Each structure stands twice: as C-alpha cells, then as structure tokens.
C-alpha cells in the first residue's frame, strides 16, 4: 500500500511540475526549452450513475452465475463492483514519452476514492528490425479486441459478461513480457506471444500459501494472431484468434464457517476468436459511422484437489470445468455526435463441471441484452445512457435483472490518437 501511495505521489509531482500544456512529439520542435521533453499527459475522468432492480445488487449476481463460480485464491485486487447510485470508476492519469531512439515508455495510474493502482507501466522497443517489437512491464494483453482497451474506450459502460466472468474487472492485465511480429505480407498480419506473472483475480489466480503449492512465475502464456485484409474505401476489418494457458489455484469454504476447507490447483486455459468491422461514413461528426464487433471465449479449467479438511478421500481427484460465451455488438451514428448501440451476449452455451467426487453437473446459460445511446459534445467528452436486461442462471434459479447506467466521461490534456 505504501509503495502504491509513493507511486501516486510521484506521479502527481510530475503532473504538477510539468504544469505547461501538454506537448506532443509532433510539436515538440516548436516549443522551446526543456518542457518539450516532458511526457505527454492526459487525465480521464469517468463517472456513472447505476441502478438495478435485483435484491442483492448486480455485482453479487455476477459472482453467483452458474459455472463461473468465484474463486478465492486471488491476491490484493480491489473490485469495481458497481453500486446503486453514483460511481466514480476511476481517474486515469496517463503519461507517455520516448525515452531515447530505442525505447518508449508510458504509465497509467488509476486513482479512485479507495486508493490508487498502477494500471499499466510499460516499456517497449521502437527500433527492432524485421517487424519485431518487445514490450515489458505491467500491461494489458493484446489478445482479442476489447482486452487492451481501457474502460473509457469501451462503447458500452460495462464489460461484456464473458470478459467479466472469465477475467474480472481488469481483464488480462499483468506483469510480463510480450513479443510481437508484423509479418511482411501485403495485408495486415500481426502475431504475438506473451508471458505473464499470473495473478489475475479470476482465471489465473495464485496464492502460493500452504497447502497450495508455491510456483515460480511466469505462470501464464498467451498467443494470438490478428489479420486485417485490404478492404476498399471506408471499410475496415480485423479478425483474430487467441489462446491462453496458465496455472490456477482456488481455496473454498464448503461448509460456510468462514474458514477455507478445501484447496484446488491446476491449469486454466481459454481460446477464442474476435472480429471488428468498421464503416467510416463520409459525413461530419461521426454521422453514419457503423461498427460491428464480436468475440467468443471457451474456457477450460483443469484442477486437482490438493487438500480437503471435510472429505480427505477426495484429495488427488480432479475437477474440470468447461464454459464459454460470446458478445456481439453494433454501433451506428444516427445523428451528428450521437451514436446508438445494441449488444447481445450469452454465456454458458457450454456449461459443464466434472466434480472431484466423480459426478458431473451441467448448468443452463445466461444472457443479456444492452441498448445504449451516447452523445459526444466534442472529441473530449461523452455522455451515455445504457439499459441492460439480463437473465442470469444462478444457484437460486433464473434471475432477471434490469440495469440502467448514466455515464459522463472527460479527457483532458494531450490529444489521444485512436487505434483501430
């Protein structure tokens, strides 16, 4: 905690001493003095109002969805469980600059009312030959499409269910190393491999405390491929495939006495695919623009019972879980500066658990539909209204929940460029 505080204090110090308006590499030549070497700075403020009609709140239901049970082996992450009423997602303080002709760096601190986290802190090469690039630090995995996007870049206020249930609030964001290669093909083809330390809050949880085995990192490996064919004019397409595998540990409290009583460890992995199609209409202020995107995940958990205080006979037996899910969403600029969006998602089309006692269980699926409209007064601000209607399969049966979000976002400072 003290370390985190130090990081935030020093980042604030840099922000304060920087003082002057941000200077991008583009205009560095025009601004005199040493200020030109200050990193690009920007601040993102993201707040929303949320209300739902469930008894215990949507965050609780997310933890109870059948087949995607919550594990308790995770380390020290804070949860962004949404509350009814006002929520401040976080304030993002971003900095980036070239260190020298060989490396560039960036850091993002996510500050909220409970404290602060280092969201990303990354180094990357800028001059490796033959289309190679190395990246290290704490960063978002580039698998799929949505994972590498920060929450304020999403086209809906909340994450798709499959992301939330498989990888948690932060997606796959971890300390590690990434190597990517841009193939010398006439179309876009990018391949990447990543090794992560392995302390995701949901899928690659690690505690290492007895009786769970202690494993050295890196404990997670990821590989992905992205392809972008040459479409004419205002049409753009990217599709990809990905897979990840790593070690996973869980600790459970079966009798509900507040003390952990059985422990599992093994492998967790997922594979899937993603696509994004964009049409950029030749009209001003985003009118007529269209985006269609979707992603599919299939998750396989393969664990062994390491210790069991209540049923020692089960020790050594295996438990496997197989779940999947997808989302598909469309966005359309129906007026200048206004966009409308529709998202449909399902999880648990495959939803099966083979338990340590030799029995199997299959569960039903959950689904959700989301509708949103947002208004962007300028490139630097956005107001969004979103309504979700979900039907969730939980241990207490099917639960229907309606949610409403009203979101307000601002971005201050350096002009952030948009990636695809």
């Amino acid at each position, binding site marked *: 905690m003290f370390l985190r505080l130090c990081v935030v204090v020093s980042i604030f110090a840099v922000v304060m001493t920087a003082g002057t308006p941000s200077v991008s590499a*583009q205009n560095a030549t*025009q601004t005199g003095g040493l200020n030109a070497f200050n990193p690009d700075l920007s601040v993102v403020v993201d707040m929303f109002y949320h209300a739902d009609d469930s008894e215990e709140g949507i965050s609780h239901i997310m933890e109870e969805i059948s087949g995607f049970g919550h594990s308790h082996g995770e380390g020290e992450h804070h949860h962004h469980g949404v509350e009814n009423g006002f929520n401040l997602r976080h304030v993002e303080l971003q900095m980036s600059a070239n260190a020298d002709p060989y490396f560039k760096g960036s850091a993002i601190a996510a500050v909220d009312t409970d404290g602060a986290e280092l969201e990303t802190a990354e180094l990357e090469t800028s001059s*490796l030959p033959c289309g190679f690039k190395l990246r290290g630090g704490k960063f978002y995995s580039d698998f799929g499409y949505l994972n590498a996007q920060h929450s304020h870049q999403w086209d809906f206020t909340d994450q798709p269910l499959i992301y939330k249930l498989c990888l948690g609030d932060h997606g796959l964001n971890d300390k590690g190393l990434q190597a990517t290669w*841009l193939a010398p093909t006439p179309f*876009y083809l990018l391949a990447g491999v990543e090794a992560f330390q392995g302390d995701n809050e949901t899928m690659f949880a690690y505690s290492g405390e007895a009786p769970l085995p202690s494993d050295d990192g890196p404990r997670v490996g990821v590989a992905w491929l992205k392809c972008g064919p040459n479409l004419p004019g205002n049409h*753009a397409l990217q599709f990809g495939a990905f897979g990840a595998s790593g070690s996973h540990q869980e600790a459970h409290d079966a009798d509900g006495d507040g003390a952990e009583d059985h422990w599992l460890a093994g492998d967790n992995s997922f594979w899937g695919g993603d696509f994004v199609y964009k049409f950029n209409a030749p009209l*001003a202020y985003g009118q007529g623009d269209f985006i269609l995107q979707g992603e599919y995940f299939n998750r396989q958990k393969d664990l062994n019972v390491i210790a069991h205080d209540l049923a020692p006979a089960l020790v050594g037996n295996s438990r496997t879980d197989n779940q999947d899910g997808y989302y598909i969403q469309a966005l359309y600029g129906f007026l200048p500066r206004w966009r409308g969006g529709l998202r449909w998602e399902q999880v648990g089309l495959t939803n099966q658990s083979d338990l340590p006692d030799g029995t199997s269980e299959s569960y039903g699926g959950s689904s959700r539909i989301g509708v949103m409209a947002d208004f962007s007064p300028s490139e630097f601000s956005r107001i969004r209204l979103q309504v979700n209607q979900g039907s969730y399969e939980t241990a207490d049966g099917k639960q229907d929940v309606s949610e409403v979000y009203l979101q307000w976002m601002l971005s201050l400072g350096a002009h952030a460029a*948009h*990636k695809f």
Partner: protein
Amino acid sequence: MHNSIIWNLTLVLSLCQPIFAAGKPLNVVATTSDFGAIAREIGGESVTVTVLAQPGEDAHFVTPKPSYIAKLARTDLLIEGGAELEVGWLPPLIEGSRNPRLVLGRPAHVACAEGLSLLEVPSIRDRAQGDIHAMGNPHYMTDPVNARLVAERIGNALAVADPAQADQYRARRAVFTKRLDEKLAVWQKQLEPFKGTRVVAFHNSWPYFARRFGFTIDLFLEPRPGIPPSPAHLADIVGTMKREKIRVILVEPYQNRKTAETVASKTGAAVLDFTQYPGGIKGTEAGYIEFMDYLVNTLSAALAGERKP
C-alpha cells in the same frame, strides 16, 4: 543435373534482382490527396503513391485501418500535413508499422507544415475554444504558394529517398513549379474583381485561400471549430449575411449540405461545393492544378453570376 539447374536458376535470379531493384518504383504514402497529387506529379513513373484518407472525408477523422499498417510497413517515403491535421489517427499507424524510416524527424517522414508560416496560431490553448490546433490552422494547401513550398520539400525528399533519380525529380519539380506559377497569375487575375468579398464557410478551412486571393472568409456555420451548427448561431449568421449581402456559402463534401441550403434559402445566397482535396469533388481528380482550377472557376462563376442582376 539437379544441382546445375538449381545453380542456373540462382544465377538467373541473382542477375535479375538488381534489375528489379532499379526498376522498382519508390513506395510513397501520402495522408491526403493534395500531397499525393504533388508526389505523383514530381515522382512520375518512378513512384507509386498511396493516399490514406478518402478525398471526400474529413482528414481529421480517418479510420486507422489495420491494412494501413501493412502499407506503412513497406513505405519508402511518408508525406503528412502535420500541424495536428492527422494527430487523431496517424501516430498509432506509424508506430504499428515498425518501419524505422518513418520515425518523425527522419528524412523519409515529411511533415509538410514544417517550414511554413501557419495562420491562427492560438495565443490561448484552451479547448473551451473548440477543437483548435496548437500549431495553427493546418488547412494550408489551398494557397498555391504553400503548395509550391510543399512541392519543393517533396521533391527534395524524393531525391534523398531515391538518389539515382534525383535529376529526374528536380526536372519534374521545376516543370510543375513553372506551371503552378503561371497558373497562379491566371487565378489571381480571375479573382481580382472580387477582392474584399466576404464569403461564408461551413468550417474554418479557408484562411490561406482567402489571404492569397483577397477574400474575407471569417464567418462559419460552425459556432466553434468541430462543434456542429446550432439554431441560434445559424440565426446570427443569417442576420449577418443579410446585412452584409453575403452571397456565397462554401461546403465541403462531408459537411451537411442541407444546413447550408437552409441558410442559403433564407438569404438568397448560393451553396458552393468546395473541397480541400483533389478528388473530393468530381472533376478535381486529375491533379493539384486542375483541383485549384475548379475552386477558382466555381467561385468566380458564382460571384460573377451574383453580380449580374
């Protein structure tokens, strides 16, 4: 036997390679079609030019298509406008291309705004003023004198990227500049009778055109750069247009022509289809000079027609 065939093939291929290399055109990428047109003019057969932005779309908002990354990876010379024209989409493409030649400041990455004196450099950098550009207005290519300077930069950059053809680039650039100078005199003469005329535009894209040809283009349908017209602001514009007898509204292809037509119908003004980019309007595709011809002819015809009654 097999060995000798392979050996012969290798020999043939290795002989062919330098020939291919010498005959291989230089890969030039321009962000917008005005730079592309000039690069084609100067490069001739020795270059292949790819333009990223569609000529009819707003160069501030271009989808950073993944396929552009593949194009930039094999680019020998990149020509951009600079001055934040492409700041919203080009930097991630260049970074994604991993092409060491395209790092800003290297000779193969030309930002044409460098070395030009830009208008409207804001004294206060505050986005409450709208989406303003810290380095000045980046729509400088509708002044042929700026186009002349840009042609010189592009010619030099081509010569550096492909020294074997340097003489040819120099010669072609001289031909282009001579033609441009002659044309500029014609355009100025053609627009001379309308000096001092006030014209309305949708977006503040024309300060350089106005300065060169002696127009005043300081009224915009947008209340602030990048903010769409509001009814109150349009009512103001209609009032000013009536009071000052302003007869022409310039509209670019991606801007809302209906808004301009509404204002025109209330003021008796004419809506003119204008474009900053060769190819943005039918009949402007052939090159920079043909594109400027269109602008000058269209505007002078409209103003001459309005003066008759």
